C-alpha cells in the first residue's frame, strides 16, 4: 500500500483517476495548482486506487493525503 501526499499547499485542479482504477508507475493521478503552476501528482508504483481523499476544487495542505494505492 502506498500513500500519496501533497508536497505543498495547493488547489486540486483535476482528478484523472477514480477509485478502483488501475494505474501504472508514473501515471498522473491528480493535477494540483499552486501559485499559477500545474503540479502533476504521479503514482510511484503500479496498483489499484483504493481510496481518493480529495475532490476537484479542494485546498490541500502540505502532507495531506491525496490517494491510497494498493
Amino acid at each position, binding site marked *: 500500500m502506498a500513500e500519496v501526499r501533497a*508536497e*505543498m*499547499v*495547493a*488547489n486540486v485542479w483535476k482528478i484523472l483517476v477514480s477509485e478502483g482504477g488501475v494505474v501504472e508507475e508514473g501515471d498522473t493521478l491528480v493535477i494540483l*495548482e*499552486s*501559485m*499559477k*503552476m500545474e*503540479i502533476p501528482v504521479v503514482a510511484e508504483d503500479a496498483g489499484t486506487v483504493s481510496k481518493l481523499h480529495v475532490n476537484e476544487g479542494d*485546498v490541500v495542505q502540505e502532507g495531506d493525503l491525496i490517494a491510497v494505492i494498493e
Partner: protein
Amino acid sequence: MLDSVLVANRGEIARRIIRTVRGMGLRAIAVHSEADADLPFVREADDAVLLGPANPAQSYLDVDKVLQAARTTGAQAIHPGYGFLAENAAFARAVIDAGLAWIGPDPKAIEQMGDKINARNLMESAGVPVAAGTREPVSDLAQAERAAEEIGFPVMVKAAGGGGGIGMGVARDAESLAKAFEQACRAAARFGGEPAILLERYIERARHVEVQILGLADGTVVALGERDCSVQRRHQKVVEESPSPGVSPELRERMLAAAVRAGEAVAYRGAGTVECLVDADAQDFVFLEMNTRLQVEHPVTELVTGLDLVEHQIRIAAGETYSLEPRVNGHAIEFRVYAEDPRRFLPGPGKIGVWEEPAGEGVRIDSGYAAGNTVTPFYDPLMAKLCVAGATREEALERGREAVAAFRIEGPKNNLPFCAELLDHPEFVSGNYDTGLVSRMRKA
C-alpha cells in the same frame, strides 16, 4: 495633471507603483482581495478597496468591481501593473470609456501585440527580423506537423494568446510535437481563448534579450537600453541584468533601432518591452514578442538610466509633452525572490516568520511582503525583487553576493540559495550564458 491613481494589482508591483504615485504628490488607491488584506501595499496606499475573494476571477480580474472601486474613491486614472488586466484591451477601453486616464498604451496597440501571430507578421512588415514560423494560426496537430516539417525541428510551440511562458514547449521531433501541441492547446483553453497555436524555429543556446521602450506623448519612441533575461526556469525569468554581457555595441545599436521601429509601427505610448532572441555566436537577433505594459524586471533599467519608469508612464498618460535623451551608466542585476524550493523550483507558499531585507550601497529591494504575512497559493510566487547596481558588472555581482547572503526569509520556501549558487557559477560569472543555463545547473 492627475490627482489620484488606482493601482489595479497586488504584491510587490502594487507597492512599487504606490511608492511613485505618492512620491509625485498624488493620492494612491489600492484594490485587494480578502487574502491580501494584510499586505504592505494595502497599508501604504491612501485608500484601499476590498474587491472580493482570493480567486482572481472574483477580485483582481473582475473588471466591473475594479471600475466600481475607481468610481467610489474618485480615482482619475488606473495603473494596471503587469499580469491580471494589464494586457486586456477590453479593460483598457472600459477604463477610457468611464472617463478615466488609462496608464498604458492605446487599447489598439495592446490588441495588435496581444496576438503573437499578428504581432509577428506586423513586425516583419515593419522591418524587424523574425524567426521562421507560422503566419496563420495552427488549429490541429496535422497542420502543426506540416508546419514543423517546413520550419525544421526543433520548433517552439506556443499559444498565440498566452504569456509568461505558460503553455510553451520545445518539440524536437514528431512525438514531442504532439505533446507540446496538446500542452499549448490546454493553455489556450485555460486563457479562455481560441486554440490558436504558433510554431517558430527554436534557436538553441539563445539569449533572451529585451529592449525597454518609452513612447512619449508627442509620438516619438525612445529606447532605454536592453535587459538580458536568459536565466530562466520553465521559460520564466529568474534573473535579469542590464546591459547584456552578450550583446556587442554594434548589435545593441541594431536592436535598439528595431525596437523603436516596433514601437512606431503601433504608435506606442508609455512603457513597453520588445523581447528578442539573440544568437550570441552570430551576434544576430529575432523578434519574439512585445509586452505592452510595465515589465517585472523594469528596476534594472531604472538603476542604469536613473529614470523612474512609473513616473514617466503617469506623466505620459497625463498628456505631458517633453523630450528624453536616456543614457545608460554602470550595471544592474535583479534576482527574483520566489516562494519556491531552490532545487526543483516547486511552489512553497507559507506564513512568513522572519523577513529581513538587506540594505547598502547599490541595493534596491522591491518586496510585496513583510514578517507576519502569509504567501498564499492563489497568486504567482514572486515575493520580492532584489536588485543591485554597480559601476561595473563585477561590482554588481559582488554586491549581489553580499545582499543575497544578508536576505533572511523564514517560513515559505525560497530560492535565495539558488541565487547564491548562480552568483558563484562560472558560466554566469563569465557573462557567457544562455537560456539553457538553469537546466544545465540542475542536470549536473
